[in-house]
Each structure stands twice: as C-alpha cells, then as structure tokens.
C-alpha cells in the first residue's frame, strides 16, 4: 500500500536529512580546527 511505503520512506528521509546536517556540521568543524591550527 502506498501509504505504508510513504510512511516508512518519509521516516528515513527525515533521519537521513538529519544525518547529512550532522555530517556538514562535522566538516565545518574540521575546517575550523584546521584554520585554528594554521594560525
């Protein structure tokens, strides 16, 4: 049933989006640390 797949799909879509946000956060942090050490 398409409702079923929609629900499961949306759950993981939301969770994956958040994981992407976290990854971006970590990357930015890593860049900041590199800047800090460079100075």
């Amino acid at each position, binding site marked *: *049933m398409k*409702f*079923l797949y*929609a*629900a*499961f799909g*949306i*759950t993981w879509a*939301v*969770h994956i989006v*958040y994981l992407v946000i*976290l990854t971006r*956060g*970590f990357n930015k*942090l890593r860049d*900041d*640390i590199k800047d*800090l050490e460079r*100075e």
Partner: protein
Amino acid sequence: MKSKFAIFALLTFVLLSWGLYQALVGAPTEATMGQVQRIFYYHVPNAWVMELCFPLNFLASIIYLVNRKAAIDAFAVATAEVGVVFCTVVLLTGPIWARPVWGIWWTWDARLTSTLVLWLIYVGYLMLRKLSTGGPNPVLAASFAIFGCIDAVFVFMAIRWFRTQHPKPVFAGGADSGIDPRMMHAFLINLLAFTCYGALLVWIRYSLERTRQKVDEAHAMKSLLHQEARSSR
C-alpha cells in the same frame, strides 16, 4: 571511546535493519487494518524517543540555569535537535497512518495538539539559538525551554477539558491484550532500535557541540593573546 561508539553504532544499525525487516515482512498482517497497520511499528517508537528527548531537555535547561556548565548546554541542544527530528517523523507518519485507517488526516485532540505545539516550541527554541546575536545564547534558550515545557502541559490539559473528545482511536491491536506475539516482537525490536538510534544521535550531536564550544574558546583565547601581544609592543 571511539571503539565503544563504533560498536554501538554497528549494534544500532543491526537492530534497525532487523526492525525494518520485522515491521515489513516478519510481523503478520493485521486483521482489520491490513498492511497499513505496520506503520505503527515505526510511528510509536519514534514517538517514544521524542518523549524521552524533550523532558531531558527540560531537565538540562533547569540544571543549566543553576550551574551554567557548558556541557549541560551541549546536552540540551542535542536533545532538543534530536527531539525535533523524531517529532517531525511522528507528525508526518501519524497522518499518513490515520488517513487510510480512520479517514481523517488530523484531529485536534489532546495528544496530537500537544505534540504539534511541542514541535512548534522546540523549533522556536532552535531558531532562538540560531538567531541570537553573538552566538547561541544558552541562558535565553534554557529559559524558553522551561516556558515551553510548562506550556505543553497546559495545552494538554486545555484540550482535554475544552474540546469535545473525538473518539480517539486507540492503537488497535497495538497495546491491547490479545496481541499476536510476533507483532509484539516486531514492535519491541523497533522500540529498542530507535531508542538506541536516538541515543546515538544525541551522543553525536553532543560531541559535535562540545567540540565546537572548545574550538570557539580556543579561538577567543587566541585573539585575546594576539591582542595582548600587539598592545604590549
């Protein structure tokens, strides 16, 4: 620490996969609602994690206002963000489940409305942190979280007393007795899986915030030292 994290992450992944399989295939199809009922195996566990996260944030906010430890604030923002993520899932899967089963997308009963209000409050909380001039203001955020959570209680009570209760469908075949043990199994596995996943996310977000706090501190120290060096010349 790193290896503990990796092991926990792996365990979570295994549990989530197993849970997904159980939810879609392993558990038997429910008699009255059909396949759509399987959404229950995802909807309720996500709700449970949200119900853990927000009170934890409430506690962290109070504790922060008392002792002002940066680590507590990091925990607060972590539980708030993860809470919002899981709450979003709940608010999306709920209507998707309700529509085919009960014919309505939404109703203003106590549970749904307070969940929506909590979502609004915590999104507001995150925006307050994001938009504060000069970096996230943990004191303002903590105060707001306290207001917000107390308010959520009022919302729940208000709707209970003031809106005629639509016959709110109980999770048919879910929490009642006489449930097929394979369904219970699927439910419990997913409950455990998502709880672990939630804990994992909070752990990740907390470390991210802590590290960021320390980097900002180091930055501030550095510019302070530079200033001192410059002025003493």
